[in-house]
């Protein structure tokens, strides 16, 4: 069972069950999050909602807590207090197995340096979430190649990440994030390591592909030109979401 990129006609990967939304229509919500790393307060009563299919940019200066907020929303970090709900379920109360399952099936990630596994080829990297979800190797690799073609990097399929350029690597990371047709994609400075031309190209493809799959995107950036791809901007300062602007 595999999933095809949105351009393909048939989808063979089971679409995740509709997780539902909160009464306010939010797919994912942070409620009054507090988190400190030793003496340093990272989040101080941060609250935020993410709606299905929207592209939300989290902006703010370095050290403002935007990446920490993203990690809490994704269930990677547990806040000291407050709750994160996904489809009405409390993410902060989930076990590691449940949160891992969410990352595998309903969340996708694109980080600044791609976080690709250097030992695997690009196609194997993209196929990885599918294989972890139990899809057979052949099907998973087939779908991965389609995604790489969709993101215009079919030539790197059999190369290892170390043999690709930064832009190619980020497009592979985007393909990996979207291959399971997640409900939410978390992107932390996805173009931070790229030049402006490559950054623009990656963002165009990333957002277009995410919109095609219907995935919501939570995008951490400090660059206005990257935030311009979003539907909504939230500004994080001193660990708190201060402003939310409709783009």
């Amino acid at each position, binding site marked *: 069972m595999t999933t095809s990129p949105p351009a393909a006609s048939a989808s063979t990967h089971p679409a*995740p*069950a509709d*997780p*539902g939304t909160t009464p306010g229509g939010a797919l994912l919500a942070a409620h009054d999050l507090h988190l400190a790393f030793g003496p340093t307060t990272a989040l101080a009563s941060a609250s935020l909602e993410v709606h299905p299919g929207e592209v939300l940019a989290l902006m703010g200066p370095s050290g403002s807590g935007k990446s920490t907020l993203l*990690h809490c929303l994704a269930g*990677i*970090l547990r806040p000291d207090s407050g709750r994160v709900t*996904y*489809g*009405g*379920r409390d993410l902060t109360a989930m076990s*590691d*197995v*449940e949160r*891992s*399952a*969410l*990352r*595998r*099936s*309903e*969340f996708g*990630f694109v*980080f600044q340096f791609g*976080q*690709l*596994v*250097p*030992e*695997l*080829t690009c196609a*194997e990297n993209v196929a*990885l*979430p599918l*294989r*972890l*979800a*139990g899809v057979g*190797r052949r099907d998973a690799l087939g779908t991965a190649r389609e995604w790489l073609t969709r993101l215009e990097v079919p030539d790197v399929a059999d190369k*290892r990440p*170390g043999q690709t350029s930064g832009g190619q690597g980020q497009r592979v990371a985007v393909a*990996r994030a979207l291959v399971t047709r997640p409900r939410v994609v978390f992107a932390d400075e996805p173009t931070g390591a790229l030049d402006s031309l490559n950054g623009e190209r990656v963002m165009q493809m990333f957002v277009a592909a995410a919109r095609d799959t219907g995935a919501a995107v939570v995008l951490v950036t400090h660059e206005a030109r990257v935030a311009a791809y979003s539907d909504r901007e939230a500004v994080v300062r001193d660990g708190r979401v201060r402003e939310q602007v409709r783009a």
Partner: protein
Amino acid sequence: MSASTPPRSSWAADLALGARMSVGGGRSGWARLALIAIGVGVGVAMLLIVASLPSVVDARTERTDARSIGSGVVEEQGDNTLLTQIVRSGFRDLGVEGRLLQAEGVRVPLPPGVDRALAPGEIVLSPALQRLMDSPDGEAIRGRWGDTVVGTIGPEGLAGPGELTFYLGTDDLDEETATRINAFGNPDEQGGGLGPELLLLGLVGLAVMIVPLASFIATAVRFGGEARDRRLAALRLVGADVGTTRRIAAGETLVGAAAGIAVGGLLLLVAQHVLPPLVPPALTFYPEDLRPAPVLAALVVIGVPVASVLVTLSAMRRVVVEPLGVVRRSEVTRRRLWWRILLPVAGAALLHPLIGGMDDDSSGDQAMVTAGVVLLLVGVALLLPWAVDAVVGRLGRGGVAWELAVRRLQLESGAAVRAITAIVVSVAGLIAIQGTFGAIQAEAEGDGELQGSVFQAKVIDTRSGAVGQEWVDGLTGTPGVRDVVTSTFTLAHVETDPDQLIGVEVGPCSVLTHETGITDCAEGDVIVVATEGAELPTPGTTYVLGEPGSGGGTWELPGDARSATLGEFHLYLSGLPSTIYVTPTALGGADVAEGYESVLVALDPDVPDAVDRLRTTAADVEMLAYVADAEQGSLTGVLGTARQALLAGTIALLVVVGASLLVNVAEQLRERRRPFAVLLAFGTRRRTLGLSVLWQVAIPVAVGITLAIVTGTALSVVLQGGLSAPIGIDWWAIGLISGGAALVVLLVTAASLPLLAGLTRSQGLQSE
């Protein structure tokens, strides 16, 4: 969100993914896998060699049994009988043992490996003895048993290719001095077996070999651990839960272990052909003998991967692999002493049967002591990280290289400690076993009669009634022989009580001073010696010389006889509670019937191989005479074999731990490429980096060797006490083993410098 958990990959898929990742990663990934394979492979090869020891022993025993004579002994002469006698000799420190054969008919049995009956004077040699005789060094042994070499002994008649033996045809034997047989081979013959001392030492020796190997393999499978943890973090990000990451890590480890087993198998094949020529003659075996016992081989092949996976999973318990990276628990945890000391304390407690000496046949005690030794050695491995932490935490400032090394060790000494654990455990075990062995050996031969004497060799003629002058005439003129004196030993009994036996040795003063240790002696003197607690013969007692019933003359012990104390060695030789040493004049012409000749020989130390030239001449006088020399503790026998086995084991272990250390250091250097690149970028000299690598290896090694010396010496003293051997510390062995280990460290560091140079080349730095 759905209530059910989404589908997840199967165990097999996770393991397969791990396996795939272990062979990915291009050059770097292959280098890591190669290091693991070599590291595990060397350990596996050693384990397979240990697993082959039963086969080697069985194959050797089968061949030596086939040529033994136990079941073929007969009383009656026949067409198919022959007389045979063993000839014991030697060359330098090697034992040579042959057999005389005298056919009594035309259908005589042939020993294995010999294809025809030998006429008197004809000799067949083992290939090793043939090579020795043909070599320039062999001049002193050439012709010792005649020159009519008619062939070589086939493999089926030899313990191994290095054995020094021969069969010599003769017509000098008679049924009084030889054994009559009608067949070779004795399938039921049981070897003499190992005494309790050697059995215990053997068990301890095996433990000393296997514990470091286990540590060695456990270290090797953790190579590349930091890179693996980073990889697993990336997997966590895309949805792998903790269980999945462990299975993937297990899959990676299994590939390394499997590659290690393959390398180990190849190394065993190499060892089959490389080892036989290198082992001492007493341990010689054929390449095909070195085959692991199936059950033990299966244990290795199954046990190594299983243990490898357990080690990997255990190592992962120290880290929390999260999607954002790796958190090391060990960095914030100080190493505690209390639980590390438990194992060595338990080991020491298990050694309690050794206190006050062990019973000879207590297998339960031996098992307990062996378990105690294993626990003590494993305890050393557990104590080492704590000891290194405790020491490096107190080290002060120094040069840049010193500080780089110390700071690195203070931050994380785990990898450096793991690298040297095997060598430290080996050194502790070897010091214990060498020290114990040295004490046993000193007890057995330290009191040797030729030690420090003016005579350096003794010819023992087992024929009764031999003539001393024959020996003086025969040996005088041999190159390297300066003086030959003879004495005659006989039994005597009190004239009025034939059951009261005593030894009488008749010889000149030079012999008496040599034998009794007295410093002044004149012709006409009589010296009486007795074992501790035995009653001294009473002056005026009349003795009948010779075996009871042999018809020897009578002689009266004079009143001016002196007494002396003898070492145990002499009394062991005579086997009698007391012996009277008599100069010929004091005997007053009494007839010594059927005495045994002893010939003492003074040798010229400037003549090379003088004792071997003496042996060759002595064989000309009497083939069966045995020549013992001061330098030669034990040419043959279990003690000599065990000593050679220990030496071979020590060398093998040091070579293996050296290889282990080299692979470990290489791995540490590879993992630290990036910090090296940074250091070089702001101008650190390569020499400084090299020195820091040396300190990083040398500091833990110094701590470890100190720990090993303390533990090994304590264990040695306890073992000596248990075996009732004289208690002492063998500083020579300690120095030799510690020096060997230090040399290994230096060589390893030197060997790793080219790798450091390669890693810090400008192209390498650019990629970092």
